[in-house]
């Protein structure tokens, strides 16, 4: 219990003193995760919606694959991305290993299935509701997808936030592909792992509380934004 209290006070002092390094790694965490979130959402949301409206031969298989990929251990993702981006690997010439871009790639791989799966679930429900009307109105496939994404945007936001939560707290993959290099690829989670390794539990916990606070702030901010938007329409 003393340790947890120490963690709280460490977090408090880090924030209260505007610790430069804390700002740096927190902003990097946000940048990496938000970039990954945008890319993953652009892939996963239309994909999840497409799978809800379109029947095709391997649909069930694709959905099962996505659900299975959700359980992929981040360390494995990290290892695969590492091998691909390594200078000895197929994409070595891009020189992306141990950069924030590599971390973004790994996070995109990790959270795209999460977002796609949750998006697919909620879009399937909305599609059941809208199905008859949209068929009756002679909509094209693309119009159906756009309509569902527009009208189901609050559910899709939840899907995206689930992806955000998974990405911001992820450490296994980004440790491998980012390398936890000070001032380059060190983010909150890898810093926590590092401080734990040094046995500095108070600082590690302090960073952990900062991470939780960051996640809460982002969630609240997005919900507030979506509510302001709703007041006009909803």
């Amino acid at each position: 219990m003393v340790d947890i209290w120490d963690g709280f006070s460490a977090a408090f002092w880090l924030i209260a003193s505007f610790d430069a390094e804390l700002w740096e790694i927190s902003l990097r965490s946000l940048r990496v995760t938000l970039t990954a979130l945008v890319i993953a959402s652009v892939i996963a949301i239309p994909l999840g919606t497409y799978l809800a409206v379109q029947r095709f031969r391997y649909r069930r298989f694709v959905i099962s694959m996505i659900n299975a990929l959700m359980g992929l251990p981040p360390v494995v993702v990290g290892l695969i991305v590492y091998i691909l981006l390594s200078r000895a690997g197929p994409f070595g010439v891009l020189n992306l290993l141990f950069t924030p871009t590599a971390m973004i790639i790994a996070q995109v791989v990790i959270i795209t299935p999460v977002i796609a799966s949750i998006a697919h679930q909620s879009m399937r429900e909305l599609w059941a509701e809208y199905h008859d009307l949209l068929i009756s109105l002679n909509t094209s496939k693309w119009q159906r997808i756009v309509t569902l994404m527009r009208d189901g945007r609050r559910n899709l936001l939840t899907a995206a936030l689930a992806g955000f939560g998974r990405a911001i707290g992820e450490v296994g993959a980004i440790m491998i592909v980012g390398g936890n290099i000070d001032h380059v690829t060190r983010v909150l989670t890898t810093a926590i792992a590092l401080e734990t390794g040094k046995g500095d539990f108070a600082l590690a916990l302090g960073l952990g509380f900062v991470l939780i606070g960051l996640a809460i702030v982002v969630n609240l901010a997005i919900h507030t934004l979506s509510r302001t938007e709703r007041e006009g329409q909803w």
Partner: protein
Amino acid sequence: MSALFPLTLQGVAVRRQGKRIIGPIDLVLNPQGPTIVIGPNGSGKTTLLRVMHGVERINAGSVSWAAQDRSKHAFVFQSPIVLRRSVAENLAYPLRLVRTPAAQIRETVAYWLDRIGLGSVQNSPATRLSGGERQKLAIARALVRKPDVLFLDEPCANLDGHATHEIETLLQEISAAGTQLVMATHDMGQARRLARDLVFVLDGKIHETGLASEKFAAPQTAALAAFLRGDIVR
């Protein structure tokens, strides 16, 4: 009246999971006024309407219109499907799908908002409307693209007398304005009030058709006579 008719159904059958839903049905429809499909619950009225509209897969037979143009169709479902958008946006939606100029959308939406008396709530979420208001909205939304034929599947099934009266008045007006109505109902009073032509469906087959005035006065089959009397018919 409309170039779409006559509509010819030949040997049409719909089966689902090995069970016959309707058929075989042979029917030629060339109506001169509101056509009402009556029959007991589960007799296949809904499926018949959906087959005519072209949104139900048929397992046998053929459906042919004099002019095959589904953009001239509209369909109102028994429990109204409202989009999770504002009332005005619900009305605008079918027009947006066909890239109608914004000015024309505004004008059409304003016209129908006024016509169905929902102008004061045009910016509220349509999901907050009462059952009767929703159904009026659904009918208006079906009409914004000026269809030649409007299918209605028991549009007043769950409504009180006041709402039913409003909707019947609206339907009589649009019928008089030249839109062909094809409506299923099991409300005999409604059938008497609205029908010019009558189609009596029993056990997935067309049992009797003809002018409503003649059929109500002198039903030819015992089943229709019994149904009109209010007996349970199977």
